[in-house]
């Protein structure tokens, strides 16, 4: 029973350690996974994620949008209530679902107008935003509220030739992986000790009820050789083995002050 439980703990430790190692390998020391650049085919002025698309929170994402010939471009992350209202009348390329590393379900949504209602840079509700010529990027942690990502053309420009790179960063993810590896190693060690019937907290065997064995019992249990010292009438010490005791007619050291156990 103990052997099986110990083995199970060791196996669980191995699994945890392997998972931790995988996390470390995937995320790397900076805790990031980068995908892209990926081409998005649109001639419009807006690319936007539908509200359920960014369904995770706590992960830090980086988005880099690049457009050719130094066209001005904007990248922003905002509450979906704001982003949806802002782009409600604008024709847009809408990403309805997204799976890593780059698996999109997207469609062109017809709008009443082809342009944006106002300059995105003038709005105060973006949670994160970036703008630039030829490229723009943001790096932000996804919050708990429902958010949408928007890549927008600025001015009279459009998003033809848009290429997008996405990075995911789990803050402290590498350390977490390392922690899992250590936890797994600890699990393996513990499982091994448990299997051998040894407590990780004391240096010795355990009884069934895990209480340490009495020191005297330990000696008794050992198969060590016992030697006796015999002091003769002249005060000279003689070392004798247990099998030689009969020649000297000695009694056990515990009962005789003339002999002592070594």
């Amino acid at each position, binding site marked *: 029973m103990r052997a099986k439980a110990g083995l199970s703990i060791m196996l669980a430790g191995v699994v945890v350690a392997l998972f931790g190692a995988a996390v470390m390998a995937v995320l790397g020391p900076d805790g990031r996974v980068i995908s892209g650049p990926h081409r998005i085919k649109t001639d419009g002025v807006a690319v936007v994620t539908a*509200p359920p698309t960014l369904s995770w929170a706590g*992960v830090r994402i980086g988005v880099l949008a690049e457009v050719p010939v130094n066209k001005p471009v904007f990248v922003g992350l905002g509450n979906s209530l704001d982003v949806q*209202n802002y782009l409600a009348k604008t024709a847009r390329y809408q990403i309805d679902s997204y799976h890593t590393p780059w698996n999109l379900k997207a469609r062109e949504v017809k709008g009443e107008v082809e342009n944006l209602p106002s300059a995105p840079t003038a709005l105060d509700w973006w949670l994160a935003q970036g703008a630039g010529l030829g490229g723009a990027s943001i790096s932000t942690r996804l919050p708990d509220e*429902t958010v949408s990502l928007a890549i927008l053309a600025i001015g009279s420009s459009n998003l033809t030739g848009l290429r997008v790179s996405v990075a995911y960063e789990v*803050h402290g993810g590498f*350390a*977490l992986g390392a922690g899992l590896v250590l936890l797994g190693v600890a699990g393996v060690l513990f499982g091994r000790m448990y299997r051998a019937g040894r407590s*990780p907290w*004391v240096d010795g065997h355990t009884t069934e009820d895990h209480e*340490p064995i009495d020191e005297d019992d330990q000696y008794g249990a050992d198969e060590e050789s016992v030697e006796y010292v015999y002091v003769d009438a002249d005060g000279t010490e003689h070392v004798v083995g247990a099998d030689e005791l009969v020649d000297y007619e000695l009694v056990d050291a515990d009962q005789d002050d003339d002999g002592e156990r070594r």
Partner: protein
Amino acid sequence: MTTPKAGLSACLLAIVLALSACAVIPHKKDDATISKVAANEQTAVEVFERYTRVLKSARELGDSQPLSTVDDETVLAIDSGSFEVAQRAASKNKSGLPEGEILASWAPRLKKYPLWFLLRVKDESRDTIKMQLFEKKSAASQWLLASTPEMLPTTKLPEIASKDGTLVPVDESDSRGMDLDAKQALKYYVAALNTPDSPSAAKVLDDGFRRQMRDAVATEKALKGVTFSQQWGSEGIDHSVRTSDGGALVFSTLLRRDTYDVKKGLSVTWPDGSPQKTFLGKEISKSGSLNFYHQILLYVPGSDGGVPRVLGQFGGVVGAKGD
């Protein structure tokens, strides 16, 4: 007795815990509902300060034009009217320069635009308390002052209810916790203003605003050779919020039309600086009418808390027609 093995185990555990604490664990969102708190406290302060700056500038210039960037349509109409009266009277707006202080702010969690939030503001220049409602009609528009009824400093404002730190909007047809829903209460109040002795008038309080309007009517009706009439209507409910007693505070805009029919052969003049003279000209000899907006703060108490009453108002002339 602890040993190196025990120490090693403890160290491993400590390192695991420490490393785990460094990580922010990504998680799937529990709720995909689209909503947001209309404005946080910082936004509310920034919007109010911007409004105060523009109002101050407009008053210094004696020109209501800058207010178009901070006032919603109704407030702008009232403000423009008061600026015009002041301009015709060749005086600066007598309201003085604004010196507002935010006493409290509330914002609801909303699922769609328009967004709005509420401020209780002490206006030192007019010695009044204002309930200012700022509204943002779309994500691409600015915050504008949509309603600003004024109250006397002595007026007791019912406690506004909150849920999860946000105020609770009340639907105009929701009568839960009240004897009347907001829509009915407003309807009775308008009826009471139109016909003070109507059965509807008994369902709302004969408050200071009603008495003030009744006195104004009596004064105008005293003009000899002039038939005066006053009509009231409502533009509906802008917003209403739940109070702690289960009632509601209702923001609404009332329309008022004062009509003067002058007996043939007579003419009527008004004193300089009066809205009538500003909007109807030097005199009228046939008929004339003045249109007013009154933004009111109507309190519909919770059950057994009495009858609805107006706690504050902000109004003025917004147009006229006369010959």
